[in-house]
């Protein structure tokens, strides 16, 4: 059944090479924890991706209830947390996942650094990975404001003030982040937009490049 669907598609689209790229490749022994337990350090990248997928899915469900305006944001989160079936779990996954994805990404970065995997010819993928790290931190910063509770409000107030203390461009960054002179309705609306549309778009594009590069160049050899 699946074979016939595959053949039908393959006759029209030549998906053989695509399939080969995606799944039909060999995994060398030095990255396989089944052969060397210490190779578990090679799992962190995959786990980062796995948790990112969880973040995207749980985030999609959260937007079904979340209302990005200052009067209703807090109440909608509270309702989601206390009234909605499994709301506490979905929000919990997004909340803890945000920390976990940073941890996994950090460990993945350290693995790449200490195995020297960023060396020629993989310099570009390292840079893409660094950009991914910044995007993730941006997602963390913008997402922190969205529940609009005391912690969110005051932490963002401090973060924006620190950004504003940068010489020359600081005041412009501050105005851009706040969307005006005060941290309020405009800020919440644009943090929501940045958190839900802009940064995830950049994230997916960079992840695409990250994965295409690793398939093109192959994983780095054993030490």
């Amino acid at each position: 059944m699946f074979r016939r669907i595959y053949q039908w598609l393959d006759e029209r689209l030549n998906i053989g090479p695509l399939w080969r790229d995606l799944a039909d490749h060999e995994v060398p022994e030095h990255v396989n924890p089944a052969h060397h337990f210490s190779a578990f350090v090679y799992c962190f990248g995959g786990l980062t991706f796995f948790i990112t997928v969880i973040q995207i899915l749980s985030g999609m469900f959260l937007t079904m209830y979340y209302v990005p305006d200052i009067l209703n944001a807090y109440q909608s989160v509270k309702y989601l947390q206390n009234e909605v079936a499994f709301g506490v779990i979905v929000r919990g996954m997004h909340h803890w996942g945000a920390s976990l994805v940073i941890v996994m990404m950090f460990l993945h970065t350290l693995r790449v650094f200490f195995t020297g995997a960023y060396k020629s010819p993989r310099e570009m993928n390292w840079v893409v990975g660094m950009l991914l790290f910044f995007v993730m931190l941006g997602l963390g910063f913008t997402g922190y404001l969205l529940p609009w509770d005391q912690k969110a409000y005051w932490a963002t107030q401090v973060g924006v003030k620190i950004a504003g203390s940068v010489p020359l461009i600081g005041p412009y960054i501050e105005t851009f982040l706040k969307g005006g002179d005060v941290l309020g309705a405009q800020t919440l609306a644009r943090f929501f937009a940045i958190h839900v549309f802009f940064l995830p778009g950049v994230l997916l594009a960079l992840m695409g490049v990250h994965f295409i590069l690793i398939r093109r160049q192959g994983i780095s050899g054993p030490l």
Partner: protein
Amino acid sequence: MAGRHEKDVEYVGDSRVIKRRGGPLTPPDYTEFPGKTEPFYPNFLLKEWMIAVVSLVAFLVLTMAHPSPLEAPANPNDTSYTPLPDWYFFFLYQLLKYEYTSGPYTVVGTILIPGLAFAALLLAPWLDRGPKRRPKDRPVATSLMLLALAAIVFLTWAAVDEHQKHMASQGGGSGAPTVEVSPDAPEGEKIWAKQTTCQGCHGVDLKGSGFAPSLEHVGSNLSQEQIVDIIKNGKGQMPPGQFQGSEEELQKLAEWLAQKK
């Protein structure tokens, strides 16, 4: 799963780069590596999936054991709140608290040190160009990274430590106050110990704060019914519906508070 076009091209390594293009773009062929290779699909993917499932279960246990926190609604007038960023920003935040990174030197803490560190990280492949990959064979890169790691761990610890000391000196406020209740304490006191939102303003010890009254003698002014009404509907700056728990627990809490005379 071979498509009919597969016969027309010869692949190199694990990628769809076609052999005749060859040249420096050719990815390594893993058959050249020592040891056993394994197909990604389905063998390796299955193992990866098992690791992912174990992680997912641990993650769900964490999620269920610790529901994500939600404090009182944002109150821009409450300047007594002690703000704290998310934990992975602690080290950047703490960096701004030292003599040569704050005040007139703020630019050192906001731009210079983080900027240099992140630029070095971004350009690492061009700064660390030698062909050797083992950490021992590139002592400069390894020791710099270990130093940065130690600095991050220290600054994160310092931020937590400072925040905890600050909270202890304030007695309540934000953060996660820890309340110890003896097992034979009244039911109402046990319920109060769980109400972190209420404690955020009224203090763990009911002593109140700059923006919420003390509850130590609330019973001399209000009856149990009036307390229930205020908890449910709010009063003045106090927002409604902050109580977390059942109606029965609310009544017990109000009964306990009404006895505070």
